[in-house]
């Protein structure tokens, strides 16, 4: 069972939930930019939540399904089509061999995740399939997908019993997601250890002025355009750990939010941290799309994260129950 790349996209890679535990070797976690979309696209198929998927950027690759396959696409809306018919997102669908998937138009969001039943049959590096393009390791030979790549999927025994259908059967349920991406113009953060280095005026600007993501941003960091910030104190910091969502204050007065491919350590002041529950929303924000930061309490961030994790598991459970009705018992 396999997928073939008919035409390569601009930056499509294999990503899972990240490669944690190897900072001692300076190996960064990487992984999907939008962990909600990744995990839900797996949940829809009954996969393990952390299974690797193809992370698509626009213009995205074209794929040929070489044998019957259960797939799902979640995250950004790139006007996906299967055999020239609209392909609904956030739903599982069964596609017969010979089906072709294309993406014609960037409608909303920046990253889509294409999952297959069973996941991809690739060799993990340090326990993960995430592609690290910098050191060319993990995923598909450590690189972005190219034309004629063949992605084998892991074998699975279950085959759904479906009503009569043509090339494609779309399952009659979808995973909710609006609650994760609503209010894209508002990104919650909690204070970083050097928050108080900001001048009072800059603190005010940080919380009330509009910022936007610079188009030069990538999987490593989002460079933010906005009111330059000033500091009451600014001393040279010893390098220490940083994380996905850390908002660093650069010497120029600009801000940089670290994303999935961030380094393990950094020496810029940590002004704040985008809360984990809002990272999927941030990952899908377009360059030049204005947004504001809103400060919340740590306890609230923790509560939102825990509740999101519970929601993901509830959805995964419901998907399994629904899928069971389509399998031969």
């Amino acid at each position, binding site marked *: 069972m396999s997928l073939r790349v008919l035409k390569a996209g601009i930056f499509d890679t294999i990503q899972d939930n990240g490669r944690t*535990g190897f*900072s001692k070797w*300076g190996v960064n976690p990487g992984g999907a930019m939008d962990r909600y979309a990744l995990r839900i696209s797996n949940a829809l198929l009954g996969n393990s939540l952390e299974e690797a998927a193809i992370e698509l950027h626009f213009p995205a690759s074209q794929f040929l399904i070489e044998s019957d396959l259960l797939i799902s696409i979640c995250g950004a809306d790139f006007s996906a089509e299967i055999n020239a018919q609209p392909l609904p997102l956030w739903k599982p669908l069964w596609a017969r061999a010979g089906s072709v998937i294309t993406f014609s138009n960037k409608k909303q969001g920046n990253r889509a995740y294409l999952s297959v039943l069973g996941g991809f049959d690739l060799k993990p590096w340090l326990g993960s399939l995430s592609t690290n393009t910098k050191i060319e390791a993990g995923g598909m030979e450590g690189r972005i997908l190219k034309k004629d790549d063949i992605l084998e999927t892991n074998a699975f025994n279950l085959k759904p019993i479906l009503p009569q259908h043509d090339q494609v059967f779309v399952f009659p349920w979808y995973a909710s997601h609006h609650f994760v991406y609503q209010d894209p113009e508002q990104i919650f953060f909690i204070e970083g250890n050097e928050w108080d280095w900001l001048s009072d005026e800059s603190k005010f600007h940080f919380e009330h002025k509009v910022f936007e993501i610079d188009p030069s941003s990538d999987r490593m960091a989002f460079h933010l355009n906005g009111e330059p910030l000033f500091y009451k104190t600014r001393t040279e910091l*010893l*390098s220490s*750990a940083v994380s*996905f969502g850390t908002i660093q204050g650069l010497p120029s007065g600009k801000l940089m939010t670290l994303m999935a491919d961030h380094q393990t350590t950094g020496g810029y002041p940590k002004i704040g941290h985008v809360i*984990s529950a809002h990272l999927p929303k941030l990952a899908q924000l377009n360059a030049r799309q204005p947004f504001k930061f809103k400060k919340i309490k740590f306890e609230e961030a*923790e509560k939102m994260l825990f509740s999101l994790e519970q929601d993901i598991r509830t959805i995964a459970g419901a998907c399994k129950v629904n899928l069971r009705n389509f399998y031969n018992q």
Partner: protein
Amino acid sequence: MSAYSIFQLGDCAMTLSLGNAFNPTDNLKIQAMKQWIEANTFQGLLDIVTAYSSLTIVYDLYSVRTAGNIQNGAEFVKSHLQSAFENSEKADATERNLKMIPVCYEAPFNLDSEFICSQKNISIEKLNALHCAKTYQVYMIGFLPGFPYMGEVDQLIASPRKDKPRTRIEAGSVGIAGIQTGVYPIDSPGGWQIIGKTPVVLFDEEKEIPAFLEAGDTVKFYQISKLAFEAYKTENQ
């Protein structure tokens, strides 16, 4: 050493810092704490990030709370960090895990040696000899996979980073930044003053342990000729 501070690094990580004034003893304490945590792990512990004078626990909040039936994940991690500080022995400063690294200090590898020598008014021979004279401690690995931050170099050769970083420094390049010395494991942009190049591969993703060095190791450089450099490369291909 008694004072430390603990702060949240976002909602999934927590850092214990021994302060912003670096001294090698603090780094030994950090290594000792890391060993203690590795021996006393908990469900939901994802990673331990050590740096010069700080240690960060990265954790999965959901696992911490559900696996241990813990109401307050952050409080739990905080008390674990405190225990690590209190219960870890002070690591000894002996030459632990000494690694010898050959370096060719000749042109075209020693891009910034002349600059350093003119600033410090010393000869290139003196610069190289001083760089080889000391045994360095690996304080942390960061910036790039396998990049070691080591110190301290002799004050006579300590040099600030370049004002304008190079867009590409070749893998194996040996550099100085302030009182630190380091080696670029892969081709990368960078601002360190480059004084030579090693044929040793510092990061090889094909290996089971891909990084040549880890924090806590000690390192001594020794000088080799260009001929020996090439021979080493050929032998170890």
